């Protein structure tokens, strides 16, 4: 099944979006967003994977001429993780502020109480 990893990424994306739409709690919504982002890790690493390839770290037992998985998508996944961490931090800070101001973390009730 040569497309299975891509379908796993698609599944994570769809399930995460479903959770984001139906969630009744802001913190849970943020966690659903991290599921959406984790689909991009699976996709990036799947695109760069080579069957039988080594991790792209050269040592005395793994010479530079061996087959390697793609180091660029791994560096991109690293960027992805950092961006996710920052997004989660800011969103959680906003959640704390929303709870202070409105006294609720249900996204549907935030608007009601502000008016």
């Amino acid at each position, binding site marked *: 099944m040569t497309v299975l990893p891509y379908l796993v990424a698609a599944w994570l994306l769809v399930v995460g979006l479903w959770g984001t739409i139906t969630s009744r709690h802001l913190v849970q919504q943020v966690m659903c967003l991290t599921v959406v982002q984790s689909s991009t890790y699976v996709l990036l690493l799947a695109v760069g994977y080579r069957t039988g390839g080594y991790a792209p770290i*050269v*040592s005395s037992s793994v010479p*530079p001429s061996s087959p390697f998985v793609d*180091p*660029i998508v791994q560096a991109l996944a690293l960027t992805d993780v950092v961006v996710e961490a920052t997004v989660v931090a800011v969103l959680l800070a906003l959640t704390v502020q929303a709870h202070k101001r409105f006294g609720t973390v249900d996204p549907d009730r935030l608007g009601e109480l502000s008016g």
Partner: protein
Amino acid sequence: MSVRPRTVAALLALAGLAALIAWAASELTPFGTPSGPANAIVRTLVHERHAANTVNGVTYDLRGLDTLGEELILFVAALGSAVLLRHGRGEDVEQERGEDERGAARTPDALRAAGTALVGPLVVLGVYVVVHGHLSPGGGFQGGVVLAAGLLLVYAAGQVMALKRVEPTALVEVADATGALAYALVAAAGLVFATAALENFLPFGTTGNLLSAGTIPVLSVAVGVEVTGAVALILTELLDQTLLRGGE
């Protein structure tokens, strides 16, 4: 929009999205046979930059400019969280002091002992991961998070009073800014000592040595300091909120 129509609309839209992605995935290169120039990049990084860990070779050399932007994103996000969370703080300072002592008393002794014992090894591991970024798996981002976790352990061990005494907020703010500035200075130094910003201008040394790969370990350490500061700042601000709201 009420809940029921929204659920139906979401189901339809997501089913359509899933079908489109599945269609797109069926046309992708089969899994396990990438078409990118992975081996050419590995050879370039090993022979021309002497970086054994080519993932960090990409991060701090080939894509060095992107990493500058990336760590500035982290810097700004840490600042943003701190500004958001500090807004309106201060009215509950008296309550906060009481919570510190009660919080410390509630923590089980076994957790406090284990947490305290783990702080030292964790800091050593974090420093190791940061400075060996060009040789083995790890680097500034990963090691920085390990180092920031040391601070979290101090909190988990119930040493909130100890944390208050060393005032980590000022320290982590300085670390955050110093790391970001150091990266920008190394980037600018490429203009002075070589021809372009972020050009690798230091001697490359021998592949596999601690002092090798030119500016890659320098940038890795700068990012490590910055990430430690940023993650610790975010954690400290969120923990302050916990302490303030602890009584509710």
